[in-house]
């Protein structure tokens, strides 16, 4: 048996390292996919940018200037090499005579997006956990059905509809919050928070059901286990059983769903941004696609990929950290 435990003992560090390497590998594959997908897109930036003045000569000259005449593998290597050092190159779209750096376009928008995502997460994740535990405790009761019906209704409507309903109620009928979430970088944080209140509420309603129901399901699936019966036979009250005995064993599936929803807050909220005129990264990407601004598109998609990989990595680490078999080997 000692041999077996040696293998297990060696794995905690190895498992974590393995997850990190897998994450980097995933990013590498994704970067190739992003690059090829964009390279295969119909249309050509040079032609589009030159419009009516596009002659074969001018197109070739612009392509040469932008480096678009080089073979694809070479372009990929140059792009990924620079991106790995934080240099995403310059935007194709000329802002006056000076070309803007991609990082200058993206960074302020990314900060806004992370602010919105962060505040939403701070509200939605604890709320989802508490409601999940509550519905599990009161399973099949009126409260359980009401909460499930309400959250399911919220995700069943399109996001823009939820957004407009909230706007109508909380900005127009009862003007508590601003309906416009446009902001500038030098605003004080309190004002920023007041501005984003409605988008935060909208996004909370959108992601709440999934996390709450996963928490509920993860808890209920463990309520039949022997150790729960044993806890009941110790005379523990139901809430102590759920919080003290069930929840510590349920973190792994919950963390996975939370990670998935947090990633969505970064990569999937363009509709909400548009409704509230919020300067987030989703709008930036949509604009870049319209302009065929390849460096910006590539940078955005890569950031989205990193978000997914990092959040899933975190979920994996939580799953490992809450598994006593891995943390306390034999």
């Amino acid at each position, binding site marked *: *048996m000692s*041999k*077996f435990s040696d*293998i297990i003992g060696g794995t905690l560090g190895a498992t974590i390292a393995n997850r990190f390497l897998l994450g980097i590998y995933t990013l590498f594959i994704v970067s190739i996919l992003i690059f090829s997908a964009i390279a295969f897109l119909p249309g050509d930036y040079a032609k589009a940018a030159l419009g009516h003045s596009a002659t074969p000569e001018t197109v070739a000259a612009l392509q040469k200037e932008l480096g678009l005449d080089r073979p694809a593998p070479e372009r990929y290597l140059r792009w990924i090499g620079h991106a790995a050092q934080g240099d995403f190159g310059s935007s194709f779209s000329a802002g006056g005579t000076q070309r803007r750096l991609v990082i200058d376009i993206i960074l302020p928008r990314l900060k806004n997006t992370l602010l919105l995502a962060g505040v939403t997460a701070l509200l939605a994740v604890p709320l989802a956990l508490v409601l999940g535990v509550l519905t599990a405790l009161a399973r099949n009761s009126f409260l359980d059905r009401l909460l499930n019906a309400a959250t399911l209704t919220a995700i069943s409507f399109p996001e823009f509809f939820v957004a407009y309903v909230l706007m109508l109620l909380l900005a127009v009928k009862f003007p508590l919050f601003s309906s416009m979430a446009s902001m500038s970088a030098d605003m004080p944080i309190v004002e920023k928070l007041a501005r984003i209140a409605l988008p935060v509420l909208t996004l909370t309603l959108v992601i709440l059901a999934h996390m709450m129901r996963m928490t509920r399901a993860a808890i209920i699936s463990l309520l*039949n*286990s*022997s*150790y729960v*019966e*044993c*806890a*009941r*036979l*110790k*005379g*523990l*009250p139901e809430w*102590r059983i759920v919080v003290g*005995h069930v929840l*510590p*064993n349920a973190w792994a599936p919950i963390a996975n769903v939370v990670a998935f929803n947090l990633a969505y807050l970064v990569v999937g909220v363009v509709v909400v941004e548009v409704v509230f005129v919020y300067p987030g990264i989703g709008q930036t990407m949509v604009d870049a696609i319209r302009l065929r601004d390849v460096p910006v598109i590539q940078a955005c998609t890569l950031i989205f990929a990193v978000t997914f990989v990092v959040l899933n990595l975190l979920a994996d680490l939580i799953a490992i950290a*809450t598994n*006593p*078999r891995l943390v*306390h*080997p*034999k």
Partner: protein
Amino acid sequence: MTDAAETMSGEQLLDIRDLRIEANIYPPGESSQTITVVDGVSLQLRKGKVLGLIGESGAGKSTIGLTSMAYVRGGLKITGGQVCFKGRDILKGGPHAVRALRGKEVCYVAQSAAAAFNPAHKLINQVVESSLMHGVTHRADAERRAVALFRKLGLPNPETIAQQYPHQVSGGQLQRIMTAMALCSEPDLIVFDEPTTALDVTTQIEVLAAIKEAIRGTGVAALYISHDLAVVAQMADDIMVLRHGRLVEFGATREIINEPRQNYTKALVLGGEIHHDEQAPDGVPILSLKGIDAGYGDGRTKVLKNVSMDLYAGQTLAVAGESGSGKSTLGRVITGLLPPARGAITFDGRMLAGRLANRSKDDLRQLQMIHQIADVAMNPRQTVGDIIGRPLSFYFGTGGTENQRRVAELLDQIEMGKGFVDRYPSELSGGQRQRVCIARALAAKPKLIICDEVTSALDPLVANGILKLLLDLQQQQQMAYLFITHDIATVRSIADSVAIMYRGEVVRYGPKSKVLTPPFDDYTERLLDSVPKKEIGWLERVIEGRAMQSTRDQH
């Protein structure tokens, strides 16, 4: 009915009157039915006494035991009778009173401690949890008491074990820790629900001794639930025999063991009447293993070491050993699921490929397998006819009426009849399911069947029926059985030759009469010694014998 004055006397601890428990079941395609799980059972238990509840699965023994904690499992409902604990009716107490009872006055020791301990918490925290919750004492004192109990129950390094997590501790140790957990809040009554059933016999005897010592030392009363009469006979003052939720017989342990009155009790006491005359090895072996090494994880974990044995046509080779001895791995090697690292398998005069993928269809057909748990070895969405018919069309390419005829014939052979063709596995009893698995193996007309613990999930009388059937079929069709089991009684009933395995090695091998007769090697002696006997005082005698042996060894 006992006199009311007597039941109210100070000695009386638990008084269950006319208990009736029902369950709603929902058979597929039919409307719900109410079945009676416990039917009018009464029992009395005095302070400091141990009452054994014995019966097969479905007898209602755990259900009755749990009512003493005012607890019923999901789907069950108490519909009649009363349960009085120290003179108060605990079924009428309300949730608060019930919680005050559980874990303080009545404690529970579960069948599988490995599942009953929460994997996420340290053992010590779980052991003292109910003492702290009920305010019996403060943490430091509870922990001191727990560690003292660990020591008393014979756990090595009590302080270290206390700080460990359940998965870091062996099954036998967990069962003792669970007993300590029950004792920690100093209850008046402990319900032991099959506390040693999941353990190997050599571990079981140590746990039994520890539990017995703890009961005697603390004067706690106990309900001791088991399907094994030999075990209950060691622990209980009185025994209640239950069947189908009804009382069969109640009496002092001595009476039940020595003078059982009811036929069912007599059958339990006498046990299997299966007798099989050993046959001498004859001709060329049908299966021959030579120097098999095998393991998992690219040979990092070696499970089998230099295993050799022979099995002759029409005979049974029993491979016996405890969990971890490698006997199931041996089955996997022979079936080709785990290619051996070294060694040769000869089957019916030809070399067998190590890998399943390299074996011919005829190799596969002639070597069939029956698994321990029939429920999971069958597709729940196929009918019995489909399950048995599948090997017919797979190996012989037959179909239609020919298959129907063969399926009916096979159902006759397993003594079930063709009325079962359209049934689903969920509509069968445990014994019937295992019979269907036997029929499926027979359908391939094999020369060798590997039986992996085929009776260990079954009740003793049902298991006997399966063993009888297997022996009859062997007589008729001359198949060889490789019979993997941890149960020495089964080995005695059916084997021609025996291999005893310990830690991946064959420690003793030969004809049954030789292997099971002295002089023994140390391990076999300990193994055979540890099998509980239906004799009062057996446990004490073995423990005493071992103590004397170890004193002698020290001198």
